[in-house]
């Protein structure tokens, strides 16, 4: 069902699961007029939707992803520039505007198809120049660590290679030589036979009239000149002199400031608000009752937030008002029991017959683990500046999903979605939080009632207490061990399953596995949190395998290694981490060493933690990290993301605890939601394997393994087994808590 428009070839199709996709092939020179207006400046030819070549020979990569510190702008531009054989010093980056033309097709594909192959029928429509689809799906999301492997592999590289092909052809035409006598290097076309050389830009307008190859040839890794090198990230200079503009920093003429307080118990509403009581306070413009929240708008943020603190607000009551964290865990436990008793277990993975093996096992080991809710606590609290004027709603903010936000805000304020313009700014941290549009909707609703632009800033407390939380969960295990201590059956039951589906799966060769779950809903809103379900399941599975090693009387590294005999890629990563950590080397007194390995978003990470436990307090001193992301496009970027993922996961493992009391979140700021700080930050050494497997992510895979590696190290140091996070709940001075239950 392909259809020509004036500028593009559009085709639609259906993917597995009945998902509709639209491919839009923007032909060379056939710029979409709407996109062209947004990105092409004077004297520039928009060669394709992903690449702009200026008359000054500067190449601009147009990237449909938000920069949250993961370096995606740089990494993706590297992929395009390398295939184009561009001069890296003349390459810059422009974030694609929030526009349906840029709907993140690659992301949609990853979410709908997982790791599976792209349907062959759609590939020819790519026509050299990659196109996006999924306008209707409003996807322009940065998340799931997919930027590099989806947009990069399937769009940026193809765009760069195709652009190079048409530039070579255009040069061949103009010089009257065969294209295969030419080569591209440093943003110039070279004809070695004649010694002729000219900048790309000279051929831009002719190239734009040529038809790009259907399948441009991509380089082999040994031909890479930019990929695999440590270029400097584009965004760094602006981030050292205060000039980088975050959502918080948006300046819109005449704007006023708003502070907001939502009903503390999720699901309750504003019952009454005594707006009169603060009317005399300086600078106050108005009080707005948003239904589930109250906002004060004032001339300055300080005035707004002070007035809000004094504003008497009554909230409605709810059945959740009496719920505490202990009630929630009790509910989880009884729902798990009930699911088993009633045969209502939801199967996640079944292999062999774990139950039968367990029933006849000589030796069974079991354990139950818990993790708490977690908040994202991005360094920049949620904020959004909104201005409703001339039938438009303009938003300035940081978002991981600009198009989705436009659609959701439009719906909330009853606008057409093309009347909502998102100006995406730098994100002061995303980690999944900035994929939820609640703060943008609030700002838009305040602006809708105001004759001036409104900058809404959530206080840190508001940010902490109205997040979308990583789920709390209970996970139970039983394993059967044979006479050598090798597991012959693995059963795992847990509460609440989200994404990705494989998060609880183990790489180990265990013939009989039964993994199942039970939904146990609470009133606490859920959200993507760095590495999503991997963040909890790696802790569960990699702690339990460690317990099995202990029960078997084996070294935890070698025990894993034996079970990875059929999983060579995992084994290589595990071996590297162990070797670089000098696994056998004796440690000082009160120190311990733990290992864990986990694959997420296509990337395998193994980490060894060395911990010192002093006065009952655990401190991670050193982390050795081995990572295989297929190929490290930007090695220093991967190292930075491993460091970041480790700090994020370590913070959660040591301290992270969002708890519910009387229906509401207790923690409010960094005094009670503690953060890892400089004096607690371990030294980190990262080692990269380029296995050549398909590209994996980097932003999230550093996080999952660190919690179990830490817990395993604490066990090694103290004999105390951490079965519930965070570590700070435990008194590590107490005697070993380990009772390996031999049930059989």
């Amino acid at each position, binding site marked *: 069902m392909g259809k020509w428009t004036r500028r593009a070839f559009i085709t639609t199709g259906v993917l597995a699961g009945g998902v509709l996709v639209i491919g839009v092939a923007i032909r060379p020179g056939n710029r979409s007029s709407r996109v062209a207006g947004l990105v092409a400046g004077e004297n520039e030819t928009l060669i394709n939707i992903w690449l702009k070549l200026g008359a000054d020979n500067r190449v601009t990569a147009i990237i449909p992803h938000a920069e949250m510190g993961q370096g995606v702008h740089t990494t993706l531009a590297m992929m395009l520039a390398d295939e184009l054989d561009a001069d890296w010093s003349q390459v810059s980056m422009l974030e694609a505007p929030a526009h349906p033309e840029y709907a993140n097709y690659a992301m949609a594909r990853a979410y709908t198809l997982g790791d599976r192959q792209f349907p062959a029928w759609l590939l020819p429509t790519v026509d050299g120049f990659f196109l996006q689809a999924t306008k209707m799906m409003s996807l322009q999301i940065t998340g799931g660590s997919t930027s590099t492997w989806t947009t990069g592999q399937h769009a940026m590289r193809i765009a760069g290679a195709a652009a190079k092909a048409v530039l070579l052809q255009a040069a061949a035409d103009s010089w009257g030589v065969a294209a295969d006598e030419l080569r591209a290097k440093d943003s110039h076309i070279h004809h070695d036979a004649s010694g002729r050389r000219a900048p790309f830009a000279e051929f831009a307008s002719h190239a734009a009239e040529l038809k790009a190859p259907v399948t441009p040839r991509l380089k082999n890794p040994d031909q890479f000149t930019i990929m695999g090198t440590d270029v400097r990230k584009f965004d*760094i*200079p602006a*981030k050292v*002199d205060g000039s980088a503009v975050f959502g918080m920093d948006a300046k819109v003429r005449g704007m006023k400031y708003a502070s907001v307080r939502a009903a503390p118990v999720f699901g309750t509403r504003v019952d009454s608000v005594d707006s009169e009581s603060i009317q005399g306070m300086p600078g106050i413009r108005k009080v707005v009752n948003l239904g589930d929240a109250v906002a004060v708008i004032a001339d300055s943020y300080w005035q707004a937030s002070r007035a809000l603190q004094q504003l008497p607000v009554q909230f409605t009551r709810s059945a959740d008002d009496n719920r505490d964290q202990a009630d929630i865990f009790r509910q989880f436990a009884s729902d798990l029991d009930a699911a088993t008793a009633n045969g209502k277990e939801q199967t996640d993975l079944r292999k062999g017959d774990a139950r039968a093996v367990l029933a006849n096992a000589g030796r069974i080991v079991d354990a139950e683990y818990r993790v708490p809710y977690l908040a994202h606590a991005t*360094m920049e609290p949620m904020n959004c500046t909104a201005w409703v004027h001339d039938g438009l709603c303009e938003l300035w903010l940081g978002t991981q999903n600009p198009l989705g936000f436009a659609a959701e805000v439009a719906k909330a304020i009853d606008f057409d979605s093309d009347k909502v313009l998102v100006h995406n700014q*730098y994100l002061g*941290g995303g980690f999944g939080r900035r994929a939820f549009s609640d703060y943008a909707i609030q700002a838009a609703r305040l602006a809708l009632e105001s004759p001036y632009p409104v900058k809404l800033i959530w206080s840190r407390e508001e940010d902490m207490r109205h997040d979308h939380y990583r789920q709390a969960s209970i996970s139970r295990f039983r394993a059967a061990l044979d006479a050598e201590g090798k597991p012959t059956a693995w059963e795992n039951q847990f509460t609440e399953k989200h994404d990705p589906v494989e998060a609880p799966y183990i790489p180990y060769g265990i013939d009989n596995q039964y993994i199942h779950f039970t939904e146990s809903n609470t009133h606490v809103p859920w959200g993507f949190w760095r590495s999503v379900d991997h963040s909890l399941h790696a802790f569960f599975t990699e702690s339990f395998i460690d317990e099995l090693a202990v029960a078997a009387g084996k070294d935890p590294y070698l025990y894993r290694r034996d079970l990875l005999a059929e999983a060579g890629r995992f084994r290589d990563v595990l071996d590297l981490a162990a070797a670089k950590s000098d696994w056998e080397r004796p440690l000082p007194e009160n120190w311990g060493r733990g290992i864990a390995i986990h694959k997420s978003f296509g990337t395998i990470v193994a980490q060894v933690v060395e911990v010192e436990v002093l006065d009952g307090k655990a401190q991670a001193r050193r982390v050795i990290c081995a990572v295989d992301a297929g190929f490290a496009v930007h090695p220093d970027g991967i190292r*930075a993301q491993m460091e*970041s993922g480790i700090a994020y996961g370590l913070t959660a493992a040591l301290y992270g605890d969002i708890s519910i009391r009387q229906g509401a979140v207790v923690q409010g700021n960094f005094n009670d939601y503690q953060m890892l700080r400089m004096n607690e930050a371990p030294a980190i050494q990262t080692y990269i394997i380029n296995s050549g497997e398909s590209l994996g992510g980097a932003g999230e895979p550093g996080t999952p393994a660190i919690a179990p590696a830490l817990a395993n190290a604490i066990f090694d140091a103290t004999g105390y087994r951490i079965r519930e996070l965070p570590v700070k709940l435990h008194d590590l001075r107490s005697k070993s808590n380990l009772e390996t239950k031999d049930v059989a």
Partner: protein
Amino acid sequence: MITLTINGKSQEFDVDPATPILWVLREQAGLTGTKYGCGIAMCGACTVHLNGMPIRSCVTPVQAAAGQEITTIEGIGNAATGLHPVQQAWIAEQVPQCGYCQSGQIMAAVALLHTNPAPTDADIDTAMSGNICRCGTYPRIRKGIKVAAAAMAAQRGGANNG
């Protein structure tokens, strides 16, 4: 009216004297490099210098700075006026990720090197542990401080010798 000297420039502000310096800088002076992170002196994102000493501008009322020298990240250096060695080291070591905490980190690091030109790891821990980085750039901050310290020592050495 309160008179403040910000990055060497004297300016008058018509604000409630209890307003934290942070909001006056950001909203009245238009200097948004200084960030809001917690509002309770727990994160360091709002760090500026008051007469050369690092302070938490989110909890310091503007009246406390009347007639005194405030320095913000914008006053430390930029590409046009020349980068401070700490900023140069931050680029060399590729320190920032999201970047939101980095103005505060740099202000704390500049103040540290001002009073202690050759800080040990323990000195760095003491001076920098008030500044949270949610992106976990701590190892690079530590390295950046050492690189900057070495560069500044070399500069001083060069000046003495020359």
